[in-house]
Every structure is written in C-alpha cells, then in structure tokens.
C-alpha cells in the first residue's frame, strides 16, 4: 500500500517536472509540425491565403512524380552532397588526426587551436566571408590570384558544378575541425604500447592505420559520424547563403531538400507543396533515426550477449 502511494506520488512528481518542457515542445514544436501536415493537404498558396481548400494528396503526388527541378532532383543532390562530404571528411580528418598524433610533435596544441578557428567562428559569418571575400567575381581573393597569374576571372558561384564544389569546400572547411577533434580524441585513447609492438613488427603507417587505428577508433567515433551525416543531410546555410539568397541568387541551380522547401514556402509561395516536402523530409529523417538506433541496439546486443 505504502509503495503504491509512493509510486503515484513519484509519477505525479515526474510529470510535474516535465510539464514546462512539455508545454513548450507541444506548442512550439509538435503543433507546428501537425499544422504543416494539415497545410500539406491543402492548396494554400499566395492566391489562397485564407480561402484554401483540402485537396488530398495532390501535393505529395506532385513531389513524387516531377523530377526536373523538382523535389526528387533536390533529394538526389542532397544524397550526393552528403556522401561526398562524408567521404572527404572522414579521409581528411583521419589523415590530419594521425599526423597530429605523431610522437614528439611539440607544437601540436598550437596547431590544434588554429585548426579549431573555422569551428569557433559563427557559421553564417564564415560563409558570408567566403562568399564576399573569396568567391566574389570582382574583388574576391581567388580571382585576384588568378588575375596575378594572368588568368581569366571565374564566376565561382554561377555554374551548377563549380558552385557545388565551392559549397563543398566551404562545408568541409566548416565541418572538418569537429571531425578532426573527435578522431584526435579517439586516437589518444589508444594504448601506446600497441603501436610500439606494431613498430617492432615492422608495420608501416598504412598497415598500422588499417589493422590498428581504424578498428580501435571506430566504435568511439561512430556516434559523432552518425550525427554528422544528419547535420550534412540537413545542411541549409552553406548552399542558401552562397547561392540561393532571396534577391541575390548567383545563378547556380543547386538545391538541397531544405533550401528547396524554403524556396517553395518563402519565394514561390507554394505553401501546400512546400509543407508536403517538409513532411516527406521529416518521415525520411525518422526512418534514418530508427535505422541507426536499431543498428546501435543490435550492436550492443551482439557485444554483450
């Protein structure tokens, strides 16, 4: 009897503690998502701001059937964007972290501090500095250098491919410090004596990396890598600020799913269609989350049977 009373009291207390957060999350996070779901079933746009009607799944059909310049193209580009970014990030961060862990590298701390700068700077400021300082076709540093070499200036953000590469470079510049730091931390946790015996066995850097470093750091860096896959997939700032700013588009027609959804809501005012895309992306992200959680759970289970 007494324990039961304690339990009821405990449950009540638990929920009371949760209440402020629940009100905030319910009203400002969940309700707008539900409302987005509702808008996605209507024809709401600039002409139908108040007198919109429910049109069923039409917006979803449109999103799934049009490829050129549509949602599917943006989705394909986002997948490519994520894959290329992750490949470069993992390889470059691994090499940099390995080099930083070279024994007797005295200035290691100084190099690390400088390499952290892109992470420490406010992201949007860095992106705008890249846009105005590096890529600007007239006074950007890159074209100044080309000019000095006697070459023609390049419109860095105008063509699709060149703009994609420019966005990739900026995103790597922004994201690598975090990945280097994670890998560096993981490498420092490896017992030095393993390396000594590997060296005695005459294993070179490549051999040591494949058979020792990578297997050792993999479980440690896995959560950070998964998080980075998500943030790269959800990347908005780099592509929007470099190429798609409202009123200052550079001419490159590259969209990730997020910039595409924003464009349809606040530029072309297809509110219903944009909401359908938002719901799509949300469902995709939920599926990703469940798959990664499942795999995590499965691995845990395998490790401790």
């Amino acid at each position: 009897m007494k324990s039961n009373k304690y339990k009821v009291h405990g449950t009540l207390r638990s929920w009371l503690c949760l209440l402020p957060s629940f009100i905030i999350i319910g009203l400002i996070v969940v309700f707008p998502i539900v409302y987005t779901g509702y808008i996605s079933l209507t024809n709401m746009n600039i002409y139908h701001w108040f007198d919109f009607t429910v049109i069923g799944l039409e917006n979803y059909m449109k999103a799934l059937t049009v490829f050129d310049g549509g949602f599917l193209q943006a989705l394909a580009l986002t997948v490519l964007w994520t894959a290329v970014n992750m490949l470069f990030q993992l390889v470059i961060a691994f090499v940099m972290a390995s080099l930083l862990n070279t024994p007797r590298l005295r200035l290691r701390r100084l190099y690390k501090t400088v390499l952290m700068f892109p992470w420490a700077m406010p992201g949007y400021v860095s992106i705008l500095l890249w846009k105005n300082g590096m890529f600007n076709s007239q006074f950007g540093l890159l074209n100044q250098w080309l000019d000095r070499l006697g070459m023609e200036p390049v419109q860095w953000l105008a063509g699709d491919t060149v703009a994609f590469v420019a966005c990739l470079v900026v995103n790597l510049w922004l994201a690598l410090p975090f990945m280097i730091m994670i890998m560096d931390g993981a490498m420092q946790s490896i017992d030095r004596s393993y390396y000594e015996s590997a060296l005695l066995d005459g294993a070179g850097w490549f051999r040591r990396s494949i058979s020792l470093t990578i297997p050792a750091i993999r479980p440690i860096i896995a959560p950070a890598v998964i998080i980075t896959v998500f943030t790269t997939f959800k990347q908005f700032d780099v592509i929007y600020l470099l190429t798609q700013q409202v009123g200052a588009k550079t001419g490159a027609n590259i969209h990730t799913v997020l910039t595409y959804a924003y464009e349809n809501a606040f530029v072309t005012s297809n509110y219903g269609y944009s909401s359908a895309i938002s719901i799509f992306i949300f469902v995709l992200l939920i599926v990703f989350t469940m798959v990664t959680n499942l795999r995590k759970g499965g691995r845990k289970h395998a490790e401790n049977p």
Partner: protein
Amino acid sequence: MRKTLERVGLALLNIFFIVICFVVIIPILYAFSVSLNASNSILGSDFSFIPKQFTLNNYRAVFVDQPVLLWLGNTLILAVSSVAVSLFAAIPAAYSLSRFRFAGRTKIVNTMTMLYSFPAILSMFAIYKLLSPMGLINTRLGLVIVYIGTMAVFGVLNLKGYFDSVPAEIEEAAKIDGANAGQTVAWILLPLAKPAVIVTGVMVLIYVWNEYIYAITFMTGADHYTLAAGLYSLQATEMSGSWPVFAAASIVVSLPILVIFFLTQKHMTSGLTAGGVKG
C-alpha cells in the same frame, strides 16, 4: 642516421602544419586585413595580408553609420531570455527523465530523439501562419518563442545524457542526510553537471546569436534586427561598395563568440558528447 631522418621528418611535418594552418585561416585573415586597410587597394593587384596604410575607419563606420549597438541590444535581450527559459524548463525535465522511473519514460525519450532530428526550418511557414494572427510577427516575443522551441528538445536531451553519467549514489547519500529533491538537484547534481549546464546554456546563446533565417524572415525594418540579421542585410544590399565595412562588422560580430568558444572549449567535448547530440 635514423635520428637525422626522424628530425627531417618532423621538420617537414611542422612545415606542413604551418602551411595548413595559414591556408585554413586565410578567409578570416583576409577579412581582418581588409577591415584595417586604409588604401582602398582591394581592387588592385598589389594586395598583401599586412595592411599598407592602417586605419580603424571601417570599425568606426560599423558603430557610427550602422545601428550595430541597437542590433546588439536586440540580440542580448533575445539571447538572455531564451537561455533563461530553456534552462528553467530543461533542467527539471532532464532530471525527471534521468532519475525517475515511470510509465511512458522510454516513449518520451524516443519521441524527443525523433523530434530532435526535425529541422526547425521545415515548420517555419506553419509557425509564421500561426504567429501572424496573434500579432507576434515582427516582435521580439515572437522570435523568443521560436528560439525557445527550437532549442527545447536539445536542452532536455543534452542535459539528460549528462545527468545519466553522474552516479546517483551521491544524491542518495544527500537524501539520507535529509535533503529534499530540490536541494539535491541544486547543491549536488548541478555542481557536478556544471559542464553540461554551461554547454547547454552556451549552445542556446550561440544559436540565438547566429540565427539569421528566422530573424530576416519574421522581422522587417532595421530597428528590429538582431546582429545576425543586420550583418546579413549589410552584405545583401551594398554588395561591392561596403566590403571593408562588412568585413569589419563580421569581425566585431564574431569576436564575442570566439571568446566564448575558446573559454568553454574545455567543457565542449564532455558537455556535448555525453548527451550524444550536437547543437
């Protein structure tokens, strides 16, 4: 022989890192040097990273010609209220999810993990449509509501993850000594979880400081801008003419964040990784 080889290798590695470090900070260095350069030689080809004629005029222009102090005030009001409300709501919720066992607890944590993957930008239009009949568009209150909502799930999950890593035994001991739940949290758990509380607060602060897309979409008129929205407007309207001023403004806006980052960097790793989420 082997020692000389090793020394040469180390020297080469040091040169490599010095070059890399320089290349990495070129965009920042370039903006910094342009902001201090008096001779408007940015269009010429004789540019160097060390300003030929030193000036602070661009910085003066930032503070005198642009309402930067007003934007700073707006940003600080938004940031302080967002951090306060976020922590006030997140600490008890995280404590409850970490320490109490009750029906539905796992479901709540799982639902929050799902919600965390939802990018705030996707429900921006719905929020606009909901806030506009309430007269909250183009007001600070409207933005604070959005910011608190955006960081709410992060705050709870990040703090919960860290609370989980703090052993409950110490709290049990305090309880036996007669402390109630509130006292236990205030005097035992929070001091132990200081890195996570600091990092969570700092992440909310940095988020508000850096958030521009809601600020430019919901706010009209330079009086209402935050620093981020103001900086955005500086580059979008006067592309070529004000690049040195824009560079100076970028440095001014970044400095506080750089200071906060390097002050809290020590806590960043432990305060963030324990929660398993990144802001």
